[in-house]
């Protein structure tokens, strides 16, 4: 040890503190930089990036078994297969970068995906279009030095805002909510044209949001999310959209729990969900549907609060950002990549042209 190690200085020179400090910083740094927090350039955590890179290497247009993808990803990700599988299924369920085949689970109901030997996946056309280009990728050796992996993927789209992310590291965590694909495109255009834009989250689960405390997704910002409840008749309420972060199963559980505690009184609750949510709540005779509806929002997960905390890695440091800044950064990065691609194309064309002319 050449340099004096910096510690908190809880006590004068404290051997124990030196040990704790060193191990703690090693571990905390790892969870932040190499596990839980996405990089702003491509909006991916390391495990996600390594999965996509592996799938790109495997890509031949046909579907591949998830078990195979997980195994190959291990060349780059020296950790357990379970963590890779979970991350892969998670991306597949978002149906943006990965085209799933088979039972990948249902985020609406909370049903789990089938085992990795059953299900298959391949990169979506969209992913192939915007996520990869070996010529504009910076590479580093993988963990055993036998091959190379991308530092970040050259993403020409605000993937982070489209997919959202959730991560808990030591000392900090990050939560970025998903956004609407078209709105993101529009916001990028607005930004490039110098117009103002405002982005709010958008959820595949639907629901109604209250953005008054959202604060552009900055740390401390909050978002209230409500289920969409309709009155079918005087004896029946129907939930057609659920708050983000819940599943039909967990929502029903919370309603049953509130009923058990006597907070609401209902006769029966039935799940008719198909690809659309439909939970029927049969009321007890004589109860007022409006009162029950208010009670559902007050005492069950029909209303939840999501805390925003936009933390990303910029320049090897975690930074707390906001939605607007993230979109700008991503758009600027996209422009930079497009410039780079055009430059490359120009070079290729010039080379070809020189080849043709020099021969004669």
């Amino acid at each position, binding site marked *: 040890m050449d340099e004096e190690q910096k510690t908190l200085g809880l006590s004068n020179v404290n051997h124990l503190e030196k040990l704790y400090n060193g191990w*703690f910083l090693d571990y905390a740094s*790892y*969870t932040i930089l*190499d596990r839980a927090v996405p990089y702003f350039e491509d909006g991916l955590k390391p495990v996600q990036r390594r999965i996509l890179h592996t799938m790109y290497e495997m890509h031949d247009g046909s579907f591949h078994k998830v078990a195979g993808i997980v195994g190959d990803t291990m060349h780059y990700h020296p950790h357990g297969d379970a963590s890779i599988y979970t991350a892969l299924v998670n991306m597949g369920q978002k149906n943006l970068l990965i085209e799933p085949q088979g039972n990948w689970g249902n985020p609406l109901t909370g049903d789990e995906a089938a085992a990795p030997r059953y299900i298959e996946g391949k990169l979506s056309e969209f992913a192939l279009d915007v996520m990869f280009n070996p010529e504009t990728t910076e590479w580093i050796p993988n963990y055993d030095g036998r091959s190379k992996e991308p530092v970040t993927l050259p993403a020409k789209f605000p993937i982070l805002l489209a997919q959202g992310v959730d991560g808990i590291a030591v000392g900090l965590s990050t939560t970025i909510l998903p956004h609407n694909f078209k709105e993101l495109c529009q916001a990028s255009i607005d930004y490039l044209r110098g117009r103002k834009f405002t982005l709010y989250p958008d959820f595949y689960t639907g629901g109604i949001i209250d953005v008054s405390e959202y604060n552009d997704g900055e740390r401390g910002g909050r978002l209230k999310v409500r289920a969409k409840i309709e009155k079918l008749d005087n004896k029946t309420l129907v939930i057609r959209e659920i708050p983000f972060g819940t599943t039909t199963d967990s929502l029903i559980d919370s309603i049953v729990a509130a009923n058990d505690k006597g907070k609401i009184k209902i006769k029966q609750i039935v799940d008719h969900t198909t690809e659309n949510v439909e939970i029927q709540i049969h009321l007890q005779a004589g109860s007022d549907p409006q009162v029950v509806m208010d009670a559902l929002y007050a005492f069950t997960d029909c209303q939840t609060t999501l805390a925003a905390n936009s933390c990303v890695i910029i320049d090897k440091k975690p930074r707390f950002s906001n939605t607007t800044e993230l979109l700008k950064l991503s758009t600027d990065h996209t422009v930079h990549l497009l410039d780079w691609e055009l430059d490359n194309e120009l070079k290729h064309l010039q080379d070809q042209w020189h080849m043709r002319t020099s021969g004669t």
Partner: protein
Amino acid sequence: MAVKYDKDSIKTLDWYEHIRLRPGMYIGKLGDGQSPDDGIYVLAKEVIDNSIDEFAMGAGKKIEIDMEDHSCRVRDYGRGIPLEKVIDCVSKMNTGGKYDSEAFQKSVGMNGVGTKAVNALSTRFIVQSFRDGKVKRAEFSKGILVKDFKIAPTNEKNGTEIYFEPDNDLFKNFRFLPAYMEEKIWNYAYLNNGLTLVMNGKDYNSPNGLLDLLHSRTDDTIRYPVIHCKGKDIEFAITHSNQEGEHYFSFVNGQHTTQGGTHQAAFREGLVKGVRDHFKKEYDASDVRNCIVGAVSVRIQEPVFESQTKTKLGSTTTAPNGPALRTWIVDFVARELDNYLHKNEDTAKKLLERINQNEKLRKELAGVKKLANERAKKANLNNKKLRDCSVHLTDAKNPLKSETMIFITEGNSASGTITTARNPKTQAVFSLRGKPKNSYGLSKKIVYENEEWNLLQAALNIENGLEDLRYDKVIIATDADVDGMHIRLLVMTFFLQYFPELVQEKHLYILQAPLFRVRNRKDKKKTFYCYDEEERDKAAKEINKKDLEITRFKGLGEMDSEDFKLLIGENMHLETVTMPNDASLGKLLEYYMGKNTQSRQDYIVENLRTEAVEEL
């Protein structure tokens, strides 16, 4: 061919050659000064000890210590070594003034080795003795006299000055960190009322002895003002805190006995007796002692220690053929404590509160323990996480008992190889599955409820204190990667919270993994594991360039069991875990293992380690 063995084979080493050949016998480990128990601090201590002995004899109230990066000077104002014998005193074995028990009745350094060892292990060693207007000076290098000055007149006050520079060949790249001496200096001050030590210009003195010591080790959460009693050749102080376990600081003739011994055992017994006598109730001993912070210091003639490093007292009498040590201490402590409690009813009341709380806590635990008992029974039959060794620390007569150790390893990393590579007599293995539970802030129930922690406690046999500890060394042997660091934090936190005595008495160690692996990529037999750059470069020369492969060493799981034998054999690199010398432990654990705070987040972000991550 038979090895020749005739008269030429028999050698007598010069005194300094022997010390240099086997420094461990004299000063423990060598080290480079990065750990408080490294050898260079022992050197300084040996020199200061002699000055302290002068003070104890009533000569000189001040000792000056100047510690720089690579040298140390100690000046006392005692009587000075008799000028004619200055050279003998620092360079002739078995020479000294402490053999006659009259002159130096109750000192530690009785064998006349201390200063000689310092002399032999230093590249430069200067001794000066001032006596009645005359000075004698001599200079040595590695124990050999280089300059013998004639006795000359001087204006200096009486006393002795010793200056030394430790040998860089032995203490590789050493550097003195004065802060690591601070604890020792403070201990000298606590134990020698009236003495002022001046280290690098800062004064250390303690008017109230052990009382001051306990104040420095506790904060305002203690349950009642420190009880402090003094008698002839014996002094003790106690209070109760909120920290589980028992914490003791015990001293014999000014020597800090970190591993306790007979005097500490008697002290603990006396405390219980005193409390029982006072309240006239047979309280459970563990209820009386839980959460105690106590210090005891005794002076006895010709103390006997159980180890070379003098950290555990073995004496059973107060002097050769003298009265029994145990009864002397037990009687004194019990009597004085009883008296004190009579005089201070407030303190007595608060002490009783703590005892009652301990009792309640213990009975609560008893419920949980019942459940855990079943598991414990099974663990007795076969502790499924433990691969035990045949000798244990509790085997009183076995000479190997102090070499016993247990490795706490990660199940999916090195458990298998460490098991095959170990010495089944003295080395046991305990394997963790995945990451153990963070025990910070949880009640002691977790020790019983969590299977992993429960089995670990059963393996070490420390449920009722350290007396029955089954291994001398408890070694955390995790990988050197980030998850290994995390597991170290979790295991250490467990011990520090529920079994701080284990750390206090220096039983807890970290196995240091090599930094580099140098190998011939085609011939596995030529693989070297290196702990520093120097070793790495040396090993690299052994292998032809074409097949050379140097990698950062990552996990213990990368090693074959053959390689592992080297790692945990004679040249095992261990780092001792030492307790902080103040009341900072609680804050430390809260900060690193407790809830996330804004200041912690800022601290991490500011001190982010990108290197560690890149090396994955």
